[in-house]
C-alpha cells in the first residue's frame, strides 16, 4: 500500500513541492520557538542564588563621562551616600554596586587554565552585598572587615567555577590562577549559584570579588543598592531620594525597584518568543491552506478511481485511511529534512549553551504539531472522498 501511494505522490510531485517547502519552513520555525521556550523553562528551574525582593537600587549620575569620573574624591562621595542611605529609617542595609541584576550588562574576565582560558563572569562587591541580597554560602565565609589591608584579594566562587578550577579539592584558601600583571586573589567562600542576568538566562561561571580600596585611575560604584522593609511604599522612595539630594545635589538620582526591573526583564525575554510564536502560527496556517488545496484537487480529480475502489469492495473507512496515509506521506519529506538539519545542532555542538533536553523537547513538539495539523487538515477532504458514490462517479463514461 505504501509503495503504491508513494508512486502516486511522486506522479503528482509538482503540486506537492509547495506543500513540502511550507512544511519544512514551518517545522523550522516551530522548532525554534519550541526550543527557545524549553530553554527558558529549563533555565528557570535552576537556583538563582540571591533574593531581590524588597531590594531597590539608586543610580547616581554625575553627568560626567567615564574618564572624568576617576578620582579619589568620587570614592568618598559614594561612600558618604551609601552611609547616609543606610541611616534612613526603613532601610535595612545599603551597599555600593557597579551593576545590578536583571540588566543586560555583563563583565567578563578570562582566567588561564590548563593552557587555555576560561571565560568567567565577575562582579566587584563590598561587605554589605551579601546582606542586601541574602546570599547563602555553602562553604567558607563572605568578605568582612578582617579583609581590610590584605595583600591578596578575597573572592567568592560559584560551585560551577570552583569545580572547573579545582575539581573535587577544597577550594577554600587556594589562590586563583591569574594572568600576567594581575594581583593575587584567594578563595574565601563558595556559593551554590549566582545568576545575575536573571532566571531565564543561562548559568555561567561566576566570580564575586571584593572591591579594591580606592585607587587613582579607577571609578567607584555608580549605584546605591539597598534592602528595605517589606511593604515599603513610595513615601520611603521619596525620603531616600530627598536625603541623597540633600547630601550631594550635584548628581541626578534614579530609583528603581529590582522587582520592576525583573518584570521588565521577563517582558523583554518573552516578547521575541511571542513574535516567533505568531510567525509560527502564520506559517502553520499556510501549511493548512496548502494542504487543503492540494487534497481538494486530489479528491476531485480522482473521483472515478476512488469510486472504482468502492465498487471493488473498499469501505468508507478504507478510503479515509488511504487519504490520511497520502497526507502523511506528503508531509514526511519536509519533516525529515527539517529534522536532519536540526539534529546537527547538538551533534556538532553548534550552540553549547543549548542543552540536549531543550533541543529534544523542541523537536518532539515540532514533529507532533506538524503531524497533528496535517491530520486535522485531511479530515474534511477524506470525508469528501468517502461520500463519492460509485454509481454516480462511474456514470459519466
Amino acid at each position, binding site marked *: 500500500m505504501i509503495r503504491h501511494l508513494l508512486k502516486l505522490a511522486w506522479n503528482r510531485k509538482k503540486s506537492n513541492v509547495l506543500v513540502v517547502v511550507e512544511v519544512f519552513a514551518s517545522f523550522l520555525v516551530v522548532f525554534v520557538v519550541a526550543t527557545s521556550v524549553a530553554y527558558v523553562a529549563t533555565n528557570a528551574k535552576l537556583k538563582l542564588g540571591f533574593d531581590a525582593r524588597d531590594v531597590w537600587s539608586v543610580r547616581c549620575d554625575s553627568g560626567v563621562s567615564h574618564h572624568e569620573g576617576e578620582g579619589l574624591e568620587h570614592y568618598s562621595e559614594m561612600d558618604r551616600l551609601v552611609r547616609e542611605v543606610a541611616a534612613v529609617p526603613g532601610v535595612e542595609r545599603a551597599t555600593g554596586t557597579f551593576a545590578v541584576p536583571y540588566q543586560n550588562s555583563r563583565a567578563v574576565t578570562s582566567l588561564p587554565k590548563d593552557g587555555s582560558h576560561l571565560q568567567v563572569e565577575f562582579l566587584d562587591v563590598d561587605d554589605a552585598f551579601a546582606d542586601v541580597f541574602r546570599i547563602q554560602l555553602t562553604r567558607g565565609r563572605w568578605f568582612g572587615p578582617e579583609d581590610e589591608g590584605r595583600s591578596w584579594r578575597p573572592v567568592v566562587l560559584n560551585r560551577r567555577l570552583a569545580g572547573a578550577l579545582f575539581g573535587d579539592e577544597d577550594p577554600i584558601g587556594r589562590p586563583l590562577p591569574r594572568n600576567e600583571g594581575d594581583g593575587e586573589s584567594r578563595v574565601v567562600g563558595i556559593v551554590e549559584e549566582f545568576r545575575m542576568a536573571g532566571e531565564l538566562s543561562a548559568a555561567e561561571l561566576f566570580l564575586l570579588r571584593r572591591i579594591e580600596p580606592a585607587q587613582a585611575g579607577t571609578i567607584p560604584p555608580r549605584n546605591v543598592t539597598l534592602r528595605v522593609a517589606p511593604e515599603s*511604599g513610595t513615601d520611603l522612595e521619596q525620603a531616600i531620594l530627598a536625603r541623597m539630594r540633600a547630601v550631594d545635589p550635584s548628581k541626578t538620582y534614579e530609583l528603581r525597584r529590582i522587582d520592576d526591573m525583573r518584570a521588565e526583564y521577563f517582558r523583554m525575554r518573552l516578547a521575541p518568543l511571542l513574535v516567533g510564536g505568531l510567525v509560527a502560527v502564520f506559517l502553520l496556517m*499556510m501549511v493548512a491552506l496548502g494542504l487543503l488545496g492540494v487534497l481538494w484537487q486530489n479528491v476531485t480529480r480522482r473521483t472515478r478511481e476512488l469510486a472504482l475502489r468502492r465498487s471493488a469492495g473498499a469501505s468508507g473507512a478504507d478510503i479515509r485511511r488511504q487519504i490520511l496515509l497520502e497526507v502523511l506521506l506528503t508531509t514526511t519529506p519536509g519533516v525529515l529534512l527539517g529534522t536532519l538539519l536540526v539534529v546537527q545542532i547538538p551533534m556538532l555542538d553548534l550552540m553549547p549553551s543549548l542543552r540536549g533536553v531543550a533541543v529534544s523537547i523542541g523537536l518532539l513538539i515540532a514533529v507532533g504539531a506538524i503531524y497533528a495539523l496535517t491530520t486535522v487538515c485531511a479530515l474534511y477532504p477524506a470525508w469528501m472522498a468517502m461520500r463519492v458514490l460509485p454509481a454516480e462517479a462511474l456514470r459519466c463514461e
Partner: protein
Amino acid sequence: MLRNYLKTALRVLLRRKFYTFISLFAISFTLLVVTLATAMLDSIFAPYPPEVHADRSLLVMSLRMSGPKASQEGGPGYGFLDRCVRGLASAERVSIFSDPDEAVSFLDGRKVKSFLRRTDGEYWKILEFDFVEGEPFTAADDREGNPVAVINEATRDRFFGANAGPAAGKSLEVAGRSFRVVGVVRNVPITRIVPFGDIWVPIGSQPNDAYKSDWSSGYAAVVLAPSRKDLPRVQAEFQERLKTTQIPDPEYTTLTSGAETLFETVSRNLLSARLDESRPGLLRAIVILVLVLFMALPTLNLVNLNLSRILERAPEIGVRKAFGASSLTLVGQFVVENVFLTLVGGALGWILSALVLAAVEASDLIPYAHFQLNLRILAWGVLTALFFGVLSGVYPAWRMSRLHPVAALRGASE
C-alpha cells in the same frame, strides 16, 4: 454582462462554502498584516506635524569616535553637537535636544513616570507643536537655566486634573526639582522619534554643567536647511567639520557621523557595518522583499485552491465551450470571480485592521498612538488586493481555457 458574472460567481462560491471560507480567511489575514505593517511604518517615518519641515531637515543621531586602540559608538553628546553642528553656516536653524528619559514624580504618595526631554530654544522654532495653552520657552531660558517646562495634555491631566483649568503658571515637581509650566501642547505619539515627550525643560536647567563637555551619548540634533536643494551642501559642510575638529579625548583620532533623514539613520544602524554609510535604498528593498515574500505564500496556496475550484466545474465549462463561448469570455468570467473574492477578503482585512489599530490606540501599549488609515494606505491595500486577485487567478484560468470540450463534458479534468 458583469452582473451575470457576479451572480455566477456568488453561486459558485456558495457551493463550496468551506473552501470559500478558508480562501477569504487567508486573504483577509494576509491583508490585515500588510495593512498593519504599512500603518506602523507610516506612523514612524511619514512626515506628520509637528515635523512639518521634515523635507528640508536632517538629523544627527549617531557618533563614532575611533582611535588606534579603542573605539566608541553610540548617541552623540552635547559637547560634540555644540562644537560640530551648532555653527553650520549653510543651515538656517540648528536645535540640540536630549533623548527622552523616564523621570519620576511623587503625587500624593503615588509614583508617576513621565518622559522628560531637555531642549534648547530653537527646538520650538523648527518643530511646530500645537500649543493649547501658553507658549514655549526660549533660548534665553536655556542660557539662564530657568526652571520652566512645557508639558503635554496627558501630563496636565495627570498632575493637575482634567478639569482644573489652565495649567500655565502652575508648578510641578519632576526628578526632584520644581518647574513652572509655561505652555501645554497636544500629545505626540511615541513613534515620532524627535518630538515625542511628556515634559520638555531647558537643557541649561540641569544641576551641573558637566554635559557641556560630554561628547558621548544622550543627545541628538536637528538641522533645518533653507530649502530642499541645500541639503547636500549642509551634509558636505558637516563632513568637513568632522575632519577638522579637535577631539578632546586623546585616545580617539577620527570622528564618524552623519546628518540625514530618520529612514537613512535606521538603515545605517541596521545594515551598515561601518557606520559611515547609510543605505536607505537597501532597507527599502529589503522591506518590499519581505512584504512580497510574505504575500507570495498565500498567493501560491490560493492558486492551488482556485485550480481545484475551477476544475471541479469542468462539465459546466465543457457545455459552454460546446455552445460557442470563447476562451476569452470564460477567462474573463473566472478572473472577475477571483477579483470579487479577493476584494471581499480585502475589505474584511481592512475592517479588521481598523479594529486592531483602534484597540491598540485605546490600550496604552504604544503611548499616545494615533494611527491614520489614510488614503495612501487605503490605496496600497486596494492595489495589493487586486494584485493578489489577478495573480492567483491567471494560472488556473489559463489551465481551464485549455480544456478540450469533449473531455470536459465527459468529466475528465486533463
